């Protein structure tokens, strides 16, 4: 009996220890952001993974020359002002005078020149510097960047994306992707690197007191890995998290601010335009008429999204053409157009030369921002096409295998998707033709059969006059929608929610952060100067009522302890009673 008593006492002590509150000293004004993946690489340019979240982990520490604010206008970061000198085909940037690196060294024009040279020698996945000839330091605070060819997206692609590296550190680094010493994280951004824990997928930053645009509003910024980000937000473990669309209303009622994302990611139908009859423009247009975009939105996205523009550029972009040709759902018209190409309906199916009209459609779980999303696109497409008399053989494969099949032209139709359609219209160029000197991207149509489109996309890359460029961009979309090298289907709506009491008003950036990252974690949210908090994103709720969040450290789980204790007690009494009877 003494044994059982001992067990009871020991278990009482152990459980008391476990369940008494964990006391932790929380830092003042600390912001926590939830992330399901956690590890996005060390927050340094060459070490962060080449995806949006990886870039964002780095962008707090490393500043660029300019930056996009909420309304997608370029605002000064390291460059106070700038101009393009057409005669010299060069950009001149005047740098801010008081800017310092996190180690206290001043930032000079030489650092910018060095960064260009360094990134030409060691290619950096976010920036292609083929259009830049060289950089030249005019004086300590003025840098001139000479172009090798006119390049209209320069400000977004390079000026607003290329993180500036400190020359005094990086000049000694020969292999940037292996370099993880502490000084690899010395930048000029509003936050300083404190820690990155690969194992736990956590990041910690602290405010840079001497930041040239003023000290950020937060003292600490922490990324934590969570299983269910939304649950972590509701429990008060984090202050910003992505949420499921269905939860928007519930969270609003709980006092969180829910922001609906702009539509810069599209699901699209890739078309093998090298095979008959998909090589025919009329046939592709017939396909577009046969496809009911609304049905995709209703069934695949449960209504949380909008039908896509046929001109590739997001219909919400400031570059969206006002008169893109549209293909409202019209199965009869689709049938007529297919018949005009010599096909005959036989038992509800189209045939030509006794061959039935059939396609294989490749589908997979498409990864959006690193997360695979299940959908019903394949089935919906199959039903819609079969309804007008086109046979469909649906093949579901792993995403990477589909990508490879698309690259090798081993497909008829494939469901694919990509982002970046809200930023610079250069995306039309990237997604229509194979960019010379680059590997094939499975989302690129590789369509060069239309001279008119070829000329337009070439012009939109090199036209430096903003008004003329806008016209070219509009026209390119119109021609794209007419030619249909691929058919955009829909834009899903993503939602984030944040705790308004935490002190940061997060926002979506029009066109996405930097080169189009559709995540509401723009570093300008942390700065006081942030004046451009306009009307981007659909703010679902703006209730500023204080939230009833319970500090997890203060919640004493008394009940489980009592339950465990009761079980032990019951066991003890049962044993004790049993023995007495014997």
């Amino acid at each position: 009996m003494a044994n059982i008593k001992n067990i009871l006492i020991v278990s009482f002590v152990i459980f008391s220890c476990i369940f008494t509150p964990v006391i932790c000293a929380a830092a003042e004004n600390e912001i926590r952001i939830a992330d399901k993946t956690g590890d996005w690489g060390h927050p340094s340019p060459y070490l962060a993974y080449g995806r949006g979240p990886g870039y964002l982990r780095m962008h707090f520490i490393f500043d660029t020359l300019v930056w996009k604010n909420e309304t997608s206008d370029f605002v000064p970061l390291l460059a106070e002002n700038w101009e393009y000198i057409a005669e010299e085909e060069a950009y001149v940037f005047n740098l801010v005078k008081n800017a310092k690196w996190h180690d206290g060294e001043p930032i000079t024009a030489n650092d910018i020149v060095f960064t260009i040279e360094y990134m030409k020698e060691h290619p950096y996945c976010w920036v292609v510097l083929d259009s830049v000839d060289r950089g030249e330091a005019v004086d300590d605070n003025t840098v001139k960047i000479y172009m090798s060819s006119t390049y209209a997206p320069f400000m977004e692609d390079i000026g607003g994306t290329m993180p500036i590296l400190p020359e005094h550190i990086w000049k000694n680094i020969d292999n940037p992707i292996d370099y993880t010493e502490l000084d690899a994280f010395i930048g000029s951004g509003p936050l300083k690197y404190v820690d990155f824990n690969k194992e736990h997928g956590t990041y910690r930053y602290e405010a840079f007191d001497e930041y040239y645009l003023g000290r950020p509003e937060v003292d600490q910024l922490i990324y934590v890995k969570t299983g269910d980000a939304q649950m972590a937000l509701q429990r008060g473990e984090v202050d910003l998290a992505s949420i499921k669309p269905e939860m928007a209303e519930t969270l609003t009622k709980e006092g969180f601010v829910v922001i609906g994302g702009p539509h810069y990611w599209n699901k699209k139908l890739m078309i093998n335009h090298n095979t008959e009859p998909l090589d025919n423009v009329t046939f592709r247009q017939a396909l577009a008429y046969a496809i009911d975009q609304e049905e995709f939105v209703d069934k695949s996205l449960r209504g949380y999204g909008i039908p896509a523009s046929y001109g590739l550029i997001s219909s919400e972009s400031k570059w969206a053409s006002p008169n893109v040709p549209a293909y409202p759902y019209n199965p009869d018209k689709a049938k007529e157009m297919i018949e005009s190409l010599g096909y005959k309906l036989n038992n509800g199916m189209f045939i030509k030369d006794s061959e039935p009209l059939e396609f294989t459609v490749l589908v997979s779980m498409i990864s959006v921002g690193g997360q695979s999303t299940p959908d019903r696109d394949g089935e919906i497409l199959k039903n819609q096409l079969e309804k007008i008399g086109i046979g469909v053989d649906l093949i579901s494969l792993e995403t990477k295998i589909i990508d490879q099949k698309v690259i090798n032209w081993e497909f008829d139709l494939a469901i694919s998707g990509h982002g970046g359609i809200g930023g610079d219209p250069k995306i039309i160029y990237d997604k229509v033709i194979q960019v010379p000197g680059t590997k094939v991207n499975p989302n690129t149509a590789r369509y060069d059969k239309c001279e008119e489109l070829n000329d337009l996309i070439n012009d939109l890359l090199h036209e430096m006059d903003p008004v003329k460029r806008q016209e070219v961009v509009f026209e390119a979309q119109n021609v794209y929608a007419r030619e249909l090298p691929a058919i955009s289907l829909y834009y899903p709506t993503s939602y984030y929610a944040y705790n308004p009491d935490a002190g940061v008003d997060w926002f979506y950036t029009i066109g996405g952060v930097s080169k189009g990252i559709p995540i509401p974690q723009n570093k300008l949210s942390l700065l006081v100067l942030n004046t451009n908090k306009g009307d981007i994103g659909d703010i679902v709720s703006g209730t500023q009522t204080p939230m009833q969040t319970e500090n997890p450290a203060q919640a004493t789980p008394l009940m489980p302890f009592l339950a465990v204790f009761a079980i032990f007690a019951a066991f003890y009494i049962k044993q004790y009673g049993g023995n007495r009877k014997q």
Partner: protein
Amino acid sequence: MKWNRKAKMVTVYLFTIIFLVFLNFLLPRLLPGDAILSMYSGQEIIITEQMYNELVILHGLDKPLYEQFLIYLIQLAHGDLGYSYVFHASTTDMILAALPWTMLLVVTSFVLSAIAGIILGVESSWRRGGKFDRSLLVFMLFIDGIPALAIGIIFLSVFSLKFGWFPTAGAMTAYSNAEGIAHIKDVLIHLVLPLSTLTLSQVPGDYLLVRNSMLLTIREPFILTARAKGIKERRIKYFHAARNAFLPFFTRIGIRLTYVLTGVLFIETIFAYPGLGFLTYEAISNRDLPLIQGILVVSVLLVLMVNIIIDLFYKKIDPRIEYAH
């Protein structure tokens, strides 16, 4: 004879390891598609020819297959499981960092579920047909039918979200500044939900096994003899019957370990627990070949190691084996 048997055993294990290592090297390479391109295909970045060529050389993918295998073997012999190109880190380091968390979860749950399974199984079989036995059996079959994933989600919704007793994810509070006892408490409180889920999903298997083998044992004549000798009930239950009933349970430990390792994959993913299971999930979703290979090698070695230990200890627990040879 004795040495021959040992040599035979060692040879069998050695061949198993070599075969598995070879398979482990080959299988990921049989996947269709260009490894480099598929690694980056989901990204909104542009891969130039120069960058592509550098990546191919960096990962040794430019060498012929046999050379890649030789390099792989040499590295393996040095304890180097390769370099993860997705996570820019040594695979060995990543696995070694994740392994202790998984071991904490797996070993604790293994022990807890075994204790619960044995006690409940013995008590249940002893009262065969009674109210306690019948209700426990139904309850266990019910729990057995629920996937670990579902148990985890229920626990999370109830104990974490509804009552707020436990954190939703992770193995400890990030940057809590807790040290010493406070840190241990923090780790333990994070352990409760994943551990309970894993344990609860394991208990029914253990319980059913012990109960069944107990039912066969308690019919044996030696139990009757023990009773006739006037030995106390509890002693007969645990020292006479359970000890014999324990044998099939012991032999199944190796097999159970593989189940636990599979179970841990889902549980760690739901609770974002930084162990081997979550790492496997990350590796597969990113198509990180070296990491997948490394995890498989470590898992295979773990299971084989446990099997060797069981083989060696079995005759100590059941001396009849020795006589049988």
